[in-house]
């Protein structure tokens, strides 16, 4: 057991020495820059998703009645709404209440005073039971007392749909770059194996197993990948900090404190782990292939 640990420690020490050479650092940088792309994209998408979630995603519909509809007729509409099974709940908003709500917004009382009368119609706020609200919106529009129908949540749902497409794109990018980075590691470790060919041949002649010979290369690939993951995180962190300065100004003009959050602990660990896996895989494929080529 201690012999086994000693061998691993020695392999790790050798791998570390190699990884800190210019070629090793360059390899880590390549992995880092390439992985920063999907990692950064993911962080931006998570931000967009948070923005969408903050908006009300319930399929809510505003039904505005014609101004000439009498209050009794307007209240009578409730029966028709109650009968519709696609509607989860609804709420009647009399025009006086709507005016009161609007007056609470800064600057509005002056405008309303200038108008001299209540410009708002009576309305119903309807919450649909499911996501497919288009047929319901069309049917509500056909009711006699209704002037227009607005589906408020649509923009938020479009944002969510866009984010889903973006997420797929990020995953595809990560997968493609992952394959590319395995190839990059395959190459750098392969060159390393070639420069140590003489030593490997001697080691084989004196009875070293392939596992022993491969071990430092495995660790080298792993370290290079992990370092690459850390570089990717650093790039994303710096990029988001710069971006947030500009976003902050924009968001403040909308009265929002929105910021893009840096990757959390779990996401950061996943990125570094993924990078390490890439490095190890590239190294393993490379060194086992070279050893096969060298024969026994």
């Amino acid at each position, binding site marked *: 057991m*201690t*012999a*086994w640990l*000693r*061998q691993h420690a*020695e392999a790790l020490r050798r791998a570390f020495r190699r990884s800190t050479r210019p070629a090793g650092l360059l390899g880590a940088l390549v992995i880092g820059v390439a992985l920063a792309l999907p990692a950064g994209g993911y962080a931006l998408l998570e931000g967009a998703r948070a923005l969408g979630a903050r908006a009300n995603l319930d399929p809510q519909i505003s039904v505005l009645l014609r101004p000439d509809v009498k209050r009794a007729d307007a209240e009578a509409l409730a029966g028709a709404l109650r009968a519709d099974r696609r509607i989860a709940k609804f709420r009647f908003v009399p025009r006086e209440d709507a005016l009161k709500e609007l007056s609470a917004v800064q600057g509005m009382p002056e405008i309303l005073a200038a108008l001299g009368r209540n410009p708002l119609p009576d309305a119903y706020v309807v919450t649909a039971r499911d996501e497919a609200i288009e047929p319901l919106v069309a049917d509500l529009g056909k009711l006699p007392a209704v002037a227009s129908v607005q589906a408020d949540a649509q923009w938020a749902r479009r944002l969510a749909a866009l984010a889903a497409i973006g997420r797929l794109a990020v995953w595809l990018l990560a997968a493609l770059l992952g394959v590319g980075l395995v190839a990059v590691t395959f190459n750098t470790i392969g060159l390393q194996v070639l420069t140590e060919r*003489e*030593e490997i*041949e*001697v*080691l*084989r*002649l*004196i*009875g*070293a*197993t*392939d596992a*022993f010979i491969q071990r430092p290369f495995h660790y080298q690939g792993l370290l290079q990948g992990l370092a690459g993951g850390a570089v990717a995180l650093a790039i994303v962190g710096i990029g988001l900090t710069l971006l947030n300065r500009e976003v902050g100004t924009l968001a403040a003009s909308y009265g929002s404190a929105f910021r893009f959050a840096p990757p959390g602990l779990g996401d950061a660990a996943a990125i570094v782990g993924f990078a390490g896996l890439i490095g190890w895989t590239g190294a393993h494929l490379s060194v086992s292939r070279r050893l096969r080529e060298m024969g*026994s």
Partner: protein
Amino acid sequence: MISFSSVAKRYPGGQEALRDVSFTVEAGMLAFVTGRSGAGKSTLLKLIPAIERPSAGSVIVNGQNVGALKRPAIPYLRRNIGLIFQDQKLLYDRSVYDNVALPLAFSGQAPREAAKRVRAALDKVGLLAREKANPVQLSGGEQQRVAIARAVVNRPALLLADEPTANLDAESATRILEIFVAFNQVGVTVLVATHDQALVSRFGKQVLHLEGGRIGAAP
């Protein structure tokens, strides 16, 4: 210890290096393989640690049929065989000490025990004082002695040397052979390939003479 029966070795190009070779070297013996260059000496030696596989016949080492050994088992076979080559195969990016310590990296000795073994091996070949030197700084004969120290550091039961004295002057060559004799006297089986007939006859040991890939009568 080593037993060849009807061994043939044909290389992929069609060249026949060994033909119908049969012999036995008992444990604890010192034997020479002689013959001109190209007679098949190196091939014969390479069959023993499974660097090459026989095309026909069987090579038995320590009761193991080496020709049929699976690849993953080969390293463990080699750990019990000390190999010495004409070109030493030392690593010139590290000290004499580290060269000799190389086989101990994977045999599981504690560092203190490993250091003791390395120094003991260097002492036996008379190079204890040069442990910190780089092999490049040593003469050909000294480099060959470092290679011997590396071969014996794991205390193998069998030593194989392929033309260990080919590039050395007579005095260094004699010294190398005396080291082999000394190991043989403490029970190590030794097989040395050489084209130097004169050197061999001075020792009066078992001789396997190869001619055109066959065992023949010594001249």
